């Protein structure tokens, strides 16, 4: 008995969790948990502030990694075997359809959640100082998520895959000057073929996931270094009296600057240098609205994890991932549609390939990246930022409307067909 206790102690090396010291040590002696602070703000645990969307996105990504690695055991990235392997997964492999469905629905879910997460970050104005850069990291994560979905779309090598990628990569070739070359490098050829499938596979299972993992680490690290999650500062009781903090000053030297202490918490070089931390500090009297991460934050995150996993599993039990006929370069299905999250783009492209396919998306990405530097209004209070909220809402609504039109209102020949009108498939 004593030996078992000794072994356990040698692993965890912390005081019992009934003590405050033990609760702190659980977090900062553990390499996986120490991305959390030992204590978190109560407001940050509130479901209605974050909806835990960032966590859900992350957990969906974990599901994608595990199911993806499982699928790799049966998948060969060259035509037509790729398609046969899909059929095998559907009909022969034990639990194959379930794994495929989980991977597919988690991928769709991740696109949805990453977008909603971005919206919540915008509406809570959490991209403002000092979190500007983490917003930029976030936009890159959004692009990587879309890139992963897009490259994954080709892998089944069915009609849907083939034509979505043909159309999608041709959009890129409208980019001035480099468009054609970029497409050639991406496809490893002039048409979607063997070389393209292999390259998309490499992007999908190696390059993009690694990039996403690296950036996610940066994203999480920056949340800590930016002082934890943002809070609705205007709702907090005012600091009595406005405390002053010195910046960049070793003990006895003149301070560089003296500023009012903020209510946001930030970690600086507390233990390495004397003097106050670099950015913002926490007031002692604020400690009362913080609680230990264990169990309060961990418990909630564990719930989010379980809801995400069981949700995806439940959906995958009832809905299968679609698989169409083998890719046939000679016959374009009518209508040929890109993945749904690109249907807004395809709708624009159906009006003008250059404006809709290159200029508009490029401007959108640039605008997203520029938001934290362009929006100079320091307030996070919704009533102070009516303009920002209106503009962003218009952006969101326009995107949604375009996607809905592309998904539900476009029939054969991209003609406008409301979903309640029945069109005989293949009628020409």
């Amino acid at each position, binding site marked *: 008995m004593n030996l078992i206790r000794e072994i356990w102690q040698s692993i965890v090396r912390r005081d019992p969790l009934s003590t405050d010291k033990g609760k702190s040590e659980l977090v900062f002696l553990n390499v996986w948990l120490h991305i959390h602070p030992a204590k978190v703000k109560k407001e940050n645990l509130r479901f209605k502030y974050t909806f835990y969307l960032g966590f859900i996105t992350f957990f969906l990504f974990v599901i994608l990694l595990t199911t993806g690695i499982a699928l790799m055991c049966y998948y060969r990235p060259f035509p037509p075997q790729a398609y046969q392997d899909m059929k095998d997964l559907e009909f022969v492999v034990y639990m194959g359809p379930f794994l495929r469905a989980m991977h597919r629905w988690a991928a769709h879910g991740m696109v949805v959640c990453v977008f909603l997460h971005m919206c919540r970050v915008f509406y809570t104005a959490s991209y403002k100082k000092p979190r500007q850069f983490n917003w930029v990291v976030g936009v890159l994560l959004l692009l990587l998520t879309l890139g992963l979905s897009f490259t994954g779309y080709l892998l089944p090598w069915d009609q849907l895959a083939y*034509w979505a990628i*043909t*159309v999608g990569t*041709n*959009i890129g070739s409208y980019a001035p000057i480099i468009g054609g*070359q970029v497409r*050639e*490098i991406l496809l*490893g*050829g*002039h*048409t979607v*073929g*063997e*070389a393209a499938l292999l390259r998309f596979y490499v992007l999908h299972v190696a390059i993009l996931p690694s990039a996403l993992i690296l950036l996610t680490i940066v994203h999480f690290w920056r949340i800590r270094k930016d002082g934890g999650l943002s809070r609705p500062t205007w709702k907090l009781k005012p600091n009595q009296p406005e405390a002053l903090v010195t910046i960049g000053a070793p003990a006895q030297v003149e301070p560089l600057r003296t500023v009012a202490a903020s209510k946001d918490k930030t970690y600086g070089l507390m233990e390495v240098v004397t003097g106050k931390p670099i950015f913002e500090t926490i007031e002692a009297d604020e400690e009362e609205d913080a609680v230990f991460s264990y169990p309060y934050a961990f418990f909630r995150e564990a719930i989010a994890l379980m809801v995400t996993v069981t949700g995806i599993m439940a959906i995958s039990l009832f809905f299968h991932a679609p698989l169409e006929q083998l890719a*046939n*370069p*000679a*016959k*374009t*299905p*009518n*209508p*040929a549609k890109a993945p749904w999250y690109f249907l807004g783009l*395809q709708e624009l*492209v*159906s*009006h*003008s*390939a250059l404006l809709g396919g290159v200029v508009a998306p490029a401007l959108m990405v640039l605008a997203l990246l520029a938001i934290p530097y362009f929006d100079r209004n320091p307030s996070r209070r919704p009533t102070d930022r009516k303009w920002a909220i209106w503009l962003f809402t218009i952006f969101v609504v326009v995107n949604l409307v375009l996607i809905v039109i592309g998904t539900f209102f476009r029939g*054969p*020949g*991209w*003609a406008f067909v409301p979903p309640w009108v029945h069109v005989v498939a293949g009628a*020409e």
Partner: protein
Amino acid sequence: MNRRAFLGWGAAGFVALCSGVAVSLAAVVRYLVPSVFYEPPQSFKIGDPADFPFGPPTFLPDEKIFVFRDREKGFAVASAVCTHLGCTVAYFQSDQRFHCPCHGSVFGPNGTVQHGPAPRALNWFEITQARDGQLLVDKDKVVPPSYRLMV
């Protein structure tokens, strides 16, 4: 080493480092551009003239071309690849036009855009008769729609 020499060598080293990085990046990009394409040849034989009927064009799915044969005017070959985003167009005998299923582009009998987002007319390719009498199409040679081969 004096200050001047130090700065000189330092600058030279920095320039060398930057060029090294630039050359490596260029090499990576070049590596990704295939030197050999294992794709079907652009110039190929499609069979004897007698294989092709008069009237509606023959669609060759692998080559993505339409072969037209007219009693008076002879042979002509049109591309079936939509100039918008590369979907395969279909030829409707009913209205003698090409229809693209993807975004609704419509091309007239001689390939010009009549409707939809396509930016250019469909391509017409050179068709000749090889020594053995077979028809030879070269997709690298784009010809005006009036081009005809009489056999």
